[in-house]
């Protein structure tokens, strides 16, 4: 997963905004509990979120939406599930791993590592070295 710079900035910005909204909501509830309620009856002190000022509500909603966008758009990679498009992507190089070609799903059937003729490969390499001088 490679995070792009815009996503990183978006995540950082919206996290700060969310933390701020959280702090504001906390301050607001402190304020509510320390100031006597206008109706003077202790049971009437509302604790529910409906008393939260509009700006804090909006700030929370916007920051969470932005945070979600930032996280989800930050380069999560899925692979096609159909063999046709996955194998096609691997063979053509549309799907890469660390910028390198991924080994095909059935390459082993033609490379057959169990039957590796190491002497032949060694000789090929030695010949190549000779041609390089």
């Amino acid at each position, binding site marked *: 997963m490679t995070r792009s710079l815009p996503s990183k900035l978006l995540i950082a910005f919206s996290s700060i905004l969310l933390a701020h909204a959280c702090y504001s*909501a906390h301050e607001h509830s*402190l304020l509510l509990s320390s100031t006597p309620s206008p109706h003077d009856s202790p049971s009437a002190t509302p604790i*529910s979120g409906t008393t939260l000022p509009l700006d804090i509500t909006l700030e929370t909603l916007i920051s969470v939406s932005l945070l979600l966008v930032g996280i*989800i758009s930050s380069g999560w990679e*899925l692979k096609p*599930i159909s063999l046709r498009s996955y*194998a096609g992507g691997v063979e053509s190089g549309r799907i890469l791993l660390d910028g390198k070609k991924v080994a095909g799903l059935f390459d082993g059937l033609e490379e057959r590592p169990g039957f590796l003729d190491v002497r032949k490969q060694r000789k090929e390499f030695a010949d190549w070295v000779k041609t390089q001088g």
Partner: protein
Amino acid sequence: MNAEERDLLLNPIVPENLVANSKTISDLHSLSSSLLGIAAGILGLESYSGFLFYLLGTLFVSTLIVTFVMGGKPEVYSRGGWKDVIAADVTGGVMGFVLTWTLFFGLVRV
């Protein structure tokens, strides 16, 4: 042999990719559900309104996943397409949502 089996034989799928994709998607879901829980806690939502918020939030998250992660083509990356993404979303994240919801509800309010 029914039509579905026949289709699987003609157009096989790669099981490893199916598993890897659903893991990535469920990771995304648990992360986003926790964030939704934080928001619900700060807003001080209670009982049904909280779950309604969760439902709307997951629909939003599913839309984001389909547009950003799947490039608008959910059927390429999951067998059920749209339905799968939303179903995994709604069922997979409830626990994380409730956890952070209650936690932040308690933290913010004294």
